[in-house]
């Protein structure tokens, strides 16, 4: 149809068709063709799954029989499931310990590295090696230090005349140690984000402060911290979202490849993602697992909204 019109147009005018019009229709066509992979992605792997997952959340579904609508049963069950509450508590505890600790340490490291130190590249690389390692690699690295039998940490404690610890196998120590290991692994990543942010803080601010006689702490507190607050906000929001869905590190470090051991000892490191995995993929309670997923999503959404609201109080935008 389009072509006929153009052809007539050309015949009547006796000149080439108006290029703009022709380009536009072909541009639209090409645009839609080129964007189509994402269209398929969105329909098949995002919108459809979201709707399905919401439906499963209110259903009893074991993948063998068609899902059966059960209303709020899954959510009621969650409310009376002590394991769910334990997983929720552990997830929150893990996030609350991990996010501030990693953010603060990463910022301090970035500030130290930003002093135009010689060998900056090498220091940065050293901090990035844990970042590029898989959790499986980290398991054996953590083992070298925290293995209860032959790790270096216990050897040191024994030499100092202190009691050896069971580390990840100790119900009380497991979560704090997981936090320490996660901070150790991820800090280089956050540090690099901060380094980029620090480089955009104008140097004359510091010079002016120095003339006024401000010390290192004063400059950090009154210039660096406010100027870098948009980066801090981004880092905190990002880390909260990923930490809330932590699975791999806990699966690997506490389970060592065995799902039935993961989250141990005695469920002391059971987090929401592990609970969800077990309900869904081990017991095939896909309905209940979907309900857990939605609750996790809602809590995360509320947390993000809260952070967005609170940011007005402490984030400075230019």
């Amino acid at each position: 149809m389009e072509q006929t019109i153009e052809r007539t147009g050309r015949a009547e005018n006796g000149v080439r068709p108006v290029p703009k019009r022709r380009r536009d229709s072909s541009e639209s066509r090409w645009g839609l063709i080129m964007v189509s992979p994402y269209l398929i992605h969105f329909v098949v792997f995002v919108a459809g799954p979201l709707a399905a997952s919401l439906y499963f959340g209110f259903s009893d579904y074991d993948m063998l029989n068609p899902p059966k609508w059960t209303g709020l049963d899954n959510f009621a069950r969650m409310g009376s499931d002590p394991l769910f509450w334990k997983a929720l508590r552990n997830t929150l505890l893990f996030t609350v310990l991990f996010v501030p600790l990693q953010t603060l340490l990463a910022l301090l490291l970035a500030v130290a590295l930003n002093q135009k130190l010689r060998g900056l590249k090498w220091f940065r690389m050293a901090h990035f090696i844990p970042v590029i390692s898989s959790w499986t690699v980290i398991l054996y690295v953590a083992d070298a230090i925290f293995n209860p039998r032959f790790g270096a940490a216990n050897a040191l404690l024994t030499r100092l005349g202190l009691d050896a610890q069971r580390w990840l196998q100790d119900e009380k120590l497991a979560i704090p140690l997981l936090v320490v290991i996660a901070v150790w692994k991820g800090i280089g990543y956050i540090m690099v984000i901060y380094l980029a942010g620090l480089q955009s803080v104008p140097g004359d601010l510091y010079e002016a402060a120095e003339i006024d006689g401000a010390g290192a702490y004063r400059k950090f507190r009154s210039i660096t911290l406010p100027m870098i607050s948009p980066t801090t906000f981004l880092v905190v929001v990002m880390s909260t979202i990923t930490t809330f869905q932590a699975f791999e590190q806990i699966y690997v470090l506490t389970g060592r490849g065995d799902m039935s051991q993961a989250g141990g000892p005695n469920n002391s490191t059971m987090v929401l993602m592990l609970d969800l995995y077990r309900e869904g993929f081990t017991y095939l309670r896909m309905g209940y697992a979907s309900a857990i997923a939605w609750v996790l999503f809602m809590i995360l959404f509320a947390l993000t909204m809260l952070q967005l609201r609170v940011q007005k109080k402490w984030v400075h935008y230019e």
Partner: protein
Amino acid sequence: MKHKRWSRAIAYLAITVSALVMLVPFAATLMNSLKTYKEYTAVPPKWIPASLQWSNYAKVLELGHFGQYTFNSFFVALLSVAGAVISCSMVGYAFARLRFPFKNALFVMVLGTMMIPPVVIIIPHFIIFNKLHLLDTLTPLWVIEWLAQPFGIFLMRQAFMNIPKEYEESAKMEGCNPFQVYVRIFMPMVKPTVATLVIFTFMGKWNEILAPVIYLTSNEKFTLPIGILSLGGQWVGNEQLMVAAALISLLPILALFLFAEKYFVQNHANSGIK
């Protein structure tokens, strides 16, 4: 001035201690991989083995399905990289340079997808691949990368938007269609961003654990991170070999990192500026 020297000294000290905290555990792990089982489990631990058991590394390559895991990991990572580069650049180009109906609505969908935590869609994904009889195959691990992931689209779109308009004008004059302009003129101009996307995708897939744990059940299908963990049962009394296996699995990423460090750092730094 004296004051400044002090603060630099403290910075050096802090960063050196921190770098040691990062590297010493890796050095200890390397040493562990070169011990006999007896040395590996000795109490108190010995830092340096009596003689370095390089043969541990040779044994890893011979035993179990290690070669198969390595192949699977490369297969998944390379197919994902190819898919991500092709699909994200194409979609990103369309969003950056072409005008077409519903463009803004579609782009809002891309941004919206970035906000959805993967946890709410993993169960339906599992069901889809079950319906397609693709469970316990490597396909679910890479196929989605061929359908343009939001992060990659965003990254490529930013790169294409920074190119001046004159380039496509002149190409259009010569009668190229938008697809030809994208392939011939624009793709060669965004090589650094493509490198970032390649590294980001490769590293993500190489280290991924959740998806392989969900989708794979047969040992010979495993990728390296979960394959190595599965060797625990077979290698009782030989656990030092698992340490060696883990370090071998780090090598490709480490090589890529030493070779192209700036792209690793650049990508992460960019995510901060956004």
